[in-house]
């Protein structure tokens, strides 16, 4: 178990902190060390019984500890989860990359400002940038789609990166550089917990996806850069990425294993006020480096991606957000020709343009103690969609309960969202924070 030492070290540090600090809530409120966290029980049930997966989507007890040490020269942060996940197949083997097992290290990093115009954050951290609402074009940091679709808290959509993150703040433009020495893939769908379309059929535990993940330190690395500045009330940004498709984007024809082909992305975004709301736009060119001609049927095509969105308050404490998102394959004809040449089925192949519309309503009520949110994603070209309703009620400063769902719909089994429709689920949770 290659992560064993890491895990023991972190658990040790965490337990030590818990012992050193007095054992009651609200420790050191005025001091520079904070220890907080939560305990949570979460249960999710599938709406349809099927043979591919367990009936239960979730049945888990989670304890998160979050310690921070604020010093004049640095900030140290450690955040880790202990998880008893009844549905998981392997609870013993901890894998810090995939998040499998009873221990998940969410953050372990050191932040410092060696120069007045420079910040440096080193270690395990959550990274995010870009303007989309659940649409990520230039944010190529790892996502945990499995947790998200199973109905865990939104926090778990972001999987941690092990990275050097340098921010430079000269006067003209701000620059962020994220260097990940070893490729951090998405915690993607594998069939173990969520069934998916494998190119021929919808499969689940009967055909768990086997991947060949690039994992050489300082060889299979990723570099992500953002340059941004404000012009008046508008925020403009340019992005660049060099690494790999974050979820499997190809297949090794010889072994049948799924692969993460090389990828470069160049993009831009803008965000600012428009009328009484906030508008955003983002674009990206996905250069599929292992299939630049677009004629390799086993590797993702290059793509152009475009997003425009708008959000505004439509009544007191009621906010509406809408987005249009396009994914265009850039060598569609070559891709189709290659599929035909190898007699592969073309009827279930992706269409050249995938158009997507999203809508989100967020309503705060009962003194903002109840937050009701509904996110809808619909693709007119794939004729499929996804609905995620979530209601969160804060019973007190410490107790919070949620109800949520993940509903996929569509007629065809192979389209992007419709392939997951056997995984429709409802879930609920109770959380105690300290």
């Amino acid at each position, binding site marked *: 178990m290659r992560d064993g030492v890491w895990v023991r070290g972190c658990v040790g540090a965490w337990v030590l902190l818990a012992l050193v600090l007095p054992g009651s809530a609200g420790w050191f409120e005025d001091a520079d060390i904070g220890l*907080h966290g939560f305990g949570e029980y979460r249960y999710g049930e599938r709406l349809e019984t099927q043979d591919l997966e367990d009936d239960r989507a979730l049945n888990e007890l989670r304890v998160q500890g979050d310690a921070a040490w*604020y010093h004049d020269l640095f900030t140290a942060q450690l955040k880790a989860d202990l998880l008893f996940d009844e549905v998981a197949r392997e609870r013993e083997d901890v894998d810090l990359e995939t998040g499998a097992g009873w221990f998940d290290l969410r953050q372990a990093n050191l932040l410092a400002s060696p120069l007045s115009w420079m910040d440096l954050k080193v270690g395990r951290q959550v990274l995010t940038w870009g303007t989309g609402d659940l649409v990520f074009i230039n944010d190529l940091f790892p996502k945990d789609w499995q947790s998200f679709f199973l109905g865990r808290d939104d926090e778990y959509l972001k999987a941690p990166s092990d990275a050097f993150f340098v921010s430079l703040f000269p006067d003209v433009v*701000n620059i962020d550089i994220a260097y990940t020495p070893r490729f951090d893939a998405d915690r993607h769908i594998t069939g173990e917990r969520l069934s998916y379309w494998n190119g021929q059929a919808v499969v689940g535990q009967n055909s768990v996806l086997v991947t060949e993940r690039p994992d050489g330190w300082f060889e299979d690395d990723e570099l992500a850069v953002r340059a941004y500045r404000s012009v008046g*009330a508008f925020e403009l940004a340019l992005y660049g990425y060099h690494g790999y498709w974050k979820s499997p984007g190809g297949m090794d024809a010889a072994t049948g294993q799924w692969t993460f082909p090389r990828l470069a992305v160049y993009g831009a975004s803008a*965000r600012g*006020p428009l009328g009484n709301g906030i508008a955003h736009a983002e674009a990206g060119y996905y250069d599929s480096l292992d299939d630049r001609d677009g004629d390799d049927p086993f590797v993702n095509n290059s793509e152009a991606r475009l997003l425009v969105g708008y959000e505004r*308050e439509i009544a007191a404490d009621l906010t509406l957000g809408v987005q249009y998102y396009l994914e265009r394959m850039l060598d569609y004809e070559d891709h189709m020709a290659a599929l035909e040449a190898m007699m592969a089925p073309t009827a279930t192949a992706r269409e050249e343009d995938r158009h997507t519309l999203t809508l989100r309503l967020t309503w705060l009520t009962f003194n*903002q103690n109840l937050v009701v949110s509904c996110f809808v994603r619909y693709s007119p070209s794939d004729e499929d969609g996804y609905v995620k309703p979530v209601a969160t009620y804060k019973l007190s*400063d410490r107790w*919070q309960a949620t109800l949520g769902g993940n509903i996929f719909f569509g007629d065809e089994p192979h389209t992007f969202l419709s392939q997951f429709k056997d995984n429709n689920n409802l879930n609920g949770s109770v959380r105690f924070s300290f």
Partner: protein
Amino acid sequence: MSMRTLLLAGCLVACLAVSSVAEELSADAIVAKANLASYYAGKDGTAKVRMELSDGRTREFAILRRNADAGLDQRFYVYFTAPADVRKMAYLVHKKPGGNDDRWLFLPALNLVKRIAPGDKRTSFVGSDFLYEDVSGRSLAEDTHELVETTDSQYVIKNTPKAPATVEFASYTVWIDKVSFLPRKAEYFDKRGTLYRRVAATKVETVDGHPTVMESTVEDLIAGSKTVNRFTKVAYDIGLKDRLFTERFLRRPPREVTR
């Protein structure tokens, strides 16, 4: 005339002069001074705030403020420390009186800087009885101001909205201290003339030469709920830099708020 009498006479003249100037202050001038005293003291300022809601819930945050070098624009940085669901969230406001404020929220669990759409300013601030506008200040141009009474120590100003359809009140009356120009009490009346809401500065102290509200209370007289704000660690002119009110420090809270 002895020196002493002369001094006394001088004082009297000065007092008369001050009081006659004060008598002549228009309602607009009084609310303008009150606005500066309440929201603009010093070049910048900081405080820790503990909010207690009547249902036992609490909110705790540190607040940093910096005035623009000219004009009435301001920048606010709010860093929440409790309760758990908002802990480590940071909130940045570029306040532009007369226009829509620019607002950002930092969600630490996702490391996400979210831009917030301009909202109805007469909605609750973080679920308390305080409204967003109580915290950031209501633009003076949105009401007409009328001096209805002058007491020994206070001016009483009646404020009537120019666009009544956009707010829940028909008018509100503010009692403003003659010396400090701090508003000590505000009462809100609905369309039937019923008093339904009261905001009061219940404790005022002088900090770094600025009269400062150290405790304020708002009562919703219809719901019967109440929120108390207590301010500690108040300081002015601490030299906050403009660059602190940017995305950089949303993502990594400055020592001014984590200390």
